[in-house]
């Protein structure tokens, strides 16, 4: 098998040599140790090599330890392109534009909440719209839709969903400048009309957790985290709105690639020179979808906070539920990076990868300037999730990027087969985790064994030094779509 031709660089990295596949302009680097190397899919390696063949790629075609086969680009992929000679590709962002994670802290302790988890999970399930065919309680008329696309989470705060102070704890301040609502198709507007403020389905979730281990006391303190503390994690994206933007622009970019004479090993890699009108249109539409997603997570956080307050009869001050941070793990951004000692402006694609900027980076908010960027890595619903921080080494090696999650190990069908005759909800309850889901088969598809062990994934990025472990979170109550 082709894996034999990969070269091990060190304990945590494998090289996909530049002659692995014809047409490669650079090599690939996959962050995996010996354990995760065993789970590498040949298709995903091919995709790392395919991305290396795109025009204007700078540095290596990178993949994080949660790599698996995606569409065109691998999931867990990072690729940076020169802003003058390089391309932008919707496939390098993914269908769920600005899929991401946010983490909320609280003043509550686990032992206080534990006996109330059944009621709380039920209430959250009722209040947070989730699942196939669900509609949110917001209807975006044309005027509001335009504002969502331009202002992102800021729109939500202006509508009363949350506090102004939330915004500085969101990557990019909760919105990307330069979104252009006029480039959005009617189909995308229609799909997005009733889906603002909805969780979706699949691997998206809302989870009540507690901090069970702290690896770095000072960093945890700076993030407002302490042992046995209750936290909430929300994982969702731009819903049907973003999916339609991606679908629309794959068509546009497929035509553009032909027009500009770019040879594509796979149609899902459709791309265009960054300065072409087609690319600029995609970039402005992608930003609109990213902003839709930030507004979405902001609304969901607000309702979560309301459920906690009304059920527990606590004031906002006593509950102390506030935003730790919010990261985007499917997005493309213009960033400045040092390449071979030179400052370069790059368009960095992260598809299933989290930004991990180091302490002192000018793009970080004042509250986290000395700490480095918080990195939020969700695991499966039974084991754990992690909080890390960005490092200087990530800046040097991975364009300031790290992993984004566990990555699936079993297909949905395999998972359903393995779950036959089992009551997953009861197994979870026996482990002290209350789960609720809209879909009958969702819990089987999403059972812990269907995923790689998140601890292995996080250990690789920690050991490789591209982010640093701060805390581990354990699930108490999970809502799935």
């Amino acid at each position: 098998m082709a894996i034999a031709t990969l070269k091990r660089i060190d304990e945590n990295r494998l090289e996909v040599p530049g002659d692995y596949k014809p047409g490669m302009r650079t090599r690939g680097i996959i962050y995996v140790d010996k354990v995760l190397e065993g789970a590498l899919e040949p298709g995903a390696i091919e995709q790392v090599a395919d991305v290396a063949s795109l025009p204007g790629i700078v540095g290596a075609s990178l993949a994080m330890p949660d790599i698996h086969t995606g569409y065109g680009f691998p999931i867990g992929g990072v690729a940076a392109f020169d802003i003058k000679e390089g391309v932008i590709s919707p496939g390098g962002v993914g269908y769920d534009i600005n899929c991401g994670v946010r983490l909320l802290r609280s003043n509550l302790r686990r032992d206080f909440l534990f006996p109330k988890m059944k009621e709380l999970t039920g209430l959250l399930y009722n209040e947070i719209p989730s699942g196939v065919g669900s509609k949110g309680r917001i209807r975006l008329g044309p005027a509001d839709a335009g504002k969502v696309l331009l202002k992102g989470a800021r729109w939500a705060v202006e509508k009363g969903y949350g506090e102004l102070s939330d915004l500085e704890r969101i990557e990019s301040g909760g919105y990307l400048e330069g979104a252009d609502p006029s480039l959005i198709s009617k189909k995308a507007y229609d799909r997005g009309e009733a889906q603002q403020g909805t969780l979706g389905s699949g691997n998206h979730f809302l989870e009540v957790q507690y901090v069970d281990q702290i690896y770095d006391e000072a960093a945890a303190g700076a993030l407002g985290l302490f042992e046995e503390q209750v936290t909430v994690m929300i994982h969702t994206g731009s819903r049907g709105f973003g999916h339609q933007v991606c679908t629309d622009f794959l068509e546009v970019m497929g035509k553009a690639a032909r027009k500009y004479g770019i040879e594509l090993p796979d149609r899902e890699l459709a791309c265009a020179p960054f300065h072409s009108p087609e690319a600029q249109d995609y970039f402005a539409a992608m930003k609109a979808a990213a902003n839709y997603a930030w507004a979405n997570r902001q609304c969901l956080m607000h309702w979560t906070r309301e459920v906690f307050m009304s059920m527990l009869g606590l004031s906002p001050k006593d509950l102390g539920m506030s935003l730790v941070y919010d990261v985007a793990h499917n997005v493309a951004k213009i960033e400045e990076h040092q390449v071979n000692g030179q400052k370069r402006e790059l368009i960095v694609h992260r598809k299933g990868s989290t930004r991990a900027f180091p302490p002192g980076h000018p793009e970080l908010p004042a509250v986290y300037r000395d700490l480095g960027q918080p990195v939020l890595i969700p695991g499966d619903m039974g084991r754990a999730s992690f909080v890390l921080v960005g490092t200087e080494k990530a800046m040097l090696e991975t364009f300031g990027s790290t992993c984004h999650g566990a990555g699936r190990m079993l297909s949905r069908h395999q998972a359903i087969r393995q779950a036959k005759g089992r009551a997953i909800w009861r197994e979870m309850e026996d482990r002290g985790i209350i789960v609720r889901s809209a879909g009958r088969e969702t819990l089987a598809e999403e059972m812990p064994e269907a995923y790689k062990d998140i601890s292995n994934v996080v250990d690789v990025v920690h050991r490789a030094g591209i982010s640093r472990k701060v805390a581990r979170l354990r699930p108490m109550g999970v809502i799935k779509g």
Partner: protein
Amino acid sequence: MDFEVLDIAGDAGIRAYGKSCGEAFVNAGIGMYSLITDMDKIREKQDLTVEAEGDSLESLLVNFLNELVCQFDTNGFIGKRIRMDAFIPSRSSFLRARVYGEEFDPERHERKLLIKAATYHDIKVEEVNGTWEAAVVFDI
């Protein structure tokens, strides 16, 4: 069986068959609906017309299925039966289909997979020994 479900790590796909290319497309559409819900509970209460274009049979299939995804997401419309009214396979291909079904009701209908889009990943539309096959993978 007019279609089979493709088991792919992380996502799901459909391989559909037909005596004609158009019939394989119809079965791909029904196959996709069967990933979203249990088709036995869907009734034919409304209908709508969808049209799609493409620069190849593959893109015609992707655009057709994404039209159905969009109708489901926007109006909650889910089909039980599809009738192909026009099918012009050429360099600039086109189809028009009538879809019979109803509005999805999360209380009454089973919720299975949420399909984000039909993709070009490993897509295949071809005639094998007189039978047309259409294989497509969905982003879930």
